[in-house]
């Protein structure tokens, strides 16, 4: 099997599993599955301060946030100080950030690395998975999927 093979989550089309993660930094609340079924479609970004492509996608996440998208995050295997430094440096587009220190929620949602971004509809159903960093050209795509999930 080639090394760059992409493993898509089988959770697309299913309801977000129940979880509750503590806050990754002081300035933002933690994240639980209930937060992802608030009536409007949202993005769930899985990232880490130690992840280089996460830096590359930071401007695109800020752009999506400016466009009015609610973005929540799972910080993968990270310390509070490292997450805070990362966000100070590259911007903080997140409403809530849950700290997933043991990849537990990542495994629950079928995510196999960082960065990954899930589109979740207003009922908490996962409708799309974007694997790898969000590039400039992916922003309109994601906005369209979010609109269709409304």
């Amino acid at each position, binding site marked *: *099997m080639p*090394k760059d*093979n992409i*493993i*898509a*989550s*089988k*959770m697309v089309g299913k309801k977000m599993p129940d979880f509750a993660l503590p806050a990754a930094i002081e300035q933002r609340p933690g994240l639980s599955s209930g937060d992802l079924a608030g009536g409007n479609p949202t993005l769930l970004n899985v990232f*880490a*301060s*130690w*992840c*280089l492509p996460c830096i590359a996608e930071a401007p695109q996440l800020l752009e999506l946030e400016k466009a009015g998208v609610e973005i929540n995050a799972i910080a*993968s*295997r*990270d*310390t509070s100080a*490292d997450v805070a430094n990362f966000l100070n440096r590259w911007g903080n587009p997140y409403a809530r950030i849950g700290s997933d*220190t*043991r*990849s*537990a929620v*990542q*495994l*629950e*949602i*079928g995510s*196999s*690395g960082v960065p990954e971004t899930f589109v979740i509809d207003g009922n908490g159903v996962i409708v799309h998975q974007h694997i790898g960093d969000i590039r400039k050209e992916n922003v309109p795509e994601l906005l369209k999927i979010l609109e269709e999930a409304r």
Partner: protein
Amino acid sequence: MRILAAFLILFLPFTATAQTGLPPAPYAYRQLDDPAKEAEAKELMEELRCLKCQSQSIADSDAPMAGDMRSQVRERIAAGQTPEQIRDWLIDRYGNWVSYDPPVTTATWPLWAAPLFLLIMGLWLARAKFRRKKDEG
């Protein structure tokens, strides 16, 4: 020596930043106290594919996420789940791909049927050959 130094300068900082700063999960490297349960967990870990390093099982990989998966396997076994329940839990999330022991499905049944078919073919060919020899002798 100079090449080695250049190599270290090039790659050490990269690997250092591309790894998590957190310690491994509690049962990533620690065995279960009950040897029977540890054996059950170990057998399953050898049959689950590492998500980061796809040519290795999670038992063989030092990737942090493989460690997190090992810890999940051990903790779930300790809590009384069966290896099949844990395998199914992962297949539900990552597909059959995650298991080195694929279930029989419409796509995978030839894996089991092909050896049987070849064995029967071989026996049939051998029988025809032996019979001819007997006739000649």
